[in-house]
């Protein structure tokens, strides 16, 4: 049964994309950038004054604030649209970046927080290595679950913009999130149109606003 494992990994991928832990200090190496931001997010989630389900929205907001300005949303959007990015007007591009970012945050924010509540104390973050090639870098990390003696690999792909290392893709257990979304978007655009993709993303947002995420 490959399907359950895949669906689980896809969920994990998305959770990580929401989590995008980067800290754009110019002096940080890519690995340090990933490590320090992960630590900051963990601190927020573990803070005594932030505990309890009634503070969920506050926690999600705080994590978003740490994360949102620090990842390259435009680059993520550009790569997920692939060849279709070129044909878009600047207005369409801006609109797409907004919708796509909102979709990621809405779909994963609450689930991420619930999963973190359950599992954060049971996992260890391991930072294995960074590989830098000019303005591009990859940071290899793992989440270790001691109780199950299992590792999940999470690799971050970054590029340097104005001296800051910014993430443009996350690869969880060998699944690149950007490529996965691109496959979905290509299928939709290929069968209908870019406009249809935007309609679908907006419908998804409305659908999510009407339903709550699973616990």
């Amino acid at each position, binding site marked *: 049964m490959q399907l359950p494992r895949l669906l689980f990994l896809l969920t994990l991928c998305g959770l990580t994309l929401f989590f995008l832990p980067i800290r754009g200090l110019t002096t940080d190496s890519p690995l340090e950038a990933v490590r320090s931001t992960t630590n900051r997010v963990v601190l927020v989630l573990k803070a005594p004054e932030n505990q309890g389900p009634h503070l969920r929205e506050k926690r999600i907001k705080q994590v978003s604030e740490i994360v949102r300005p620090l990842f390259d949303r435009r680059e993520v959007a*550009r790569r997920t649209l*692939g060849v279709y990015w070129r044909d878009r007007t600047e207005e369409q591009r801006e609109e797409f970046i907004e919708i796509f970012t909102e979709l990621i945050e809405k779909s994963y924010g609450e689930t991420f927080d619930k999963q973190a509540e359950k599992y954060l104390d049971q996992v260890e973050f391991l930072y294995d290595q960074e590989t830098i090639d000019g303005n591009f870098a990859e940071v290899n990390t793992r989440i270790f679950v001691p109780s*199950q003696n299992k590792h999940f690999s999470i690799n971050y792909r970054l590029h340097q913009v104005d001296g800051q290392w910014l993430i443009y893709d996350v690869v969880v257990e060998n699944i690149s999130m950007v490529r996965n979304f*691109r496959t979905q978007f290509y299928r939709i655009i290929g069968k209908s149109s870019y406009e249809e993709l935007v309609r679908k993303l907006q419908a998804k947002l409305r659908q999510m606003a009407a339903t709550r995420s699973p616990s």
Partner: protein
Amino acid sequence: MLKKLAVVVSIVGIVQAGFFLTRAQAQMGSAGQDEVAPQPIADPFEPFNQAMLSFNLKLDEYILHPVASGYAAILPLGARQGVGRFFHNINIAPRLGNKLLQMKLVGAGKEVGRFVINTTLGGLGFFDVADSWFGLEAGHADFGQTLAQYGISPGPYLVLPFFGPSTVRDAVGLSVDGAMQPMNYLLPTYPETIAARGGWVMGNAVNFRSLNLELFENVDRFSVDLYGAVQDGYLQQRERVVQDALAEQ
């Protein structure tokens, strides 16, 4: 046996045809991270695949998930993890066979070592002492990977009922791996033994599902196009499995 071989050979022919059909697109796949991303991959079986994806999701919703939930309520987590390790240990034959076919002699030796240690000291494989005491980590090898190593392309994407996402090449691999199970030959073909084999496969699936019950419920929420998400997830994972096999000495 001859019949089985004939079926395998004819399926290999289909894979080869798929190889020529999709060679161009496979070459473009390596540009996946670049600015100019490839066009959507060819998917000639899509209508069938869509139906099978729906079937598998219903199967999971109405049978596998409820059964696994009940099973998880009865058996504690540690025991279910042990059952998972037992299934992994006992399924050594296809892994060993494929390590040998791939000429990975060190990997084959590891498989034998792990099997001997875990079957004896690890209580029939319920405990993975080969890893924890001797540092022999669990490995992987399958016939789809072996075919890839011999230069055969994945061919078109194919969703199988019960087994889930695959490609033509990996579907052939799956049937050959099944044929490598000694139980299929050691046990006589009676309805009871066929049922036992089915139960065996189901047991493995239920146990695996029980270990991953809550992690991807409501998965629709996390994708815009579930079919594409699952298809790409599978293909990316398999590309890595094949790369790992090529890199292994």
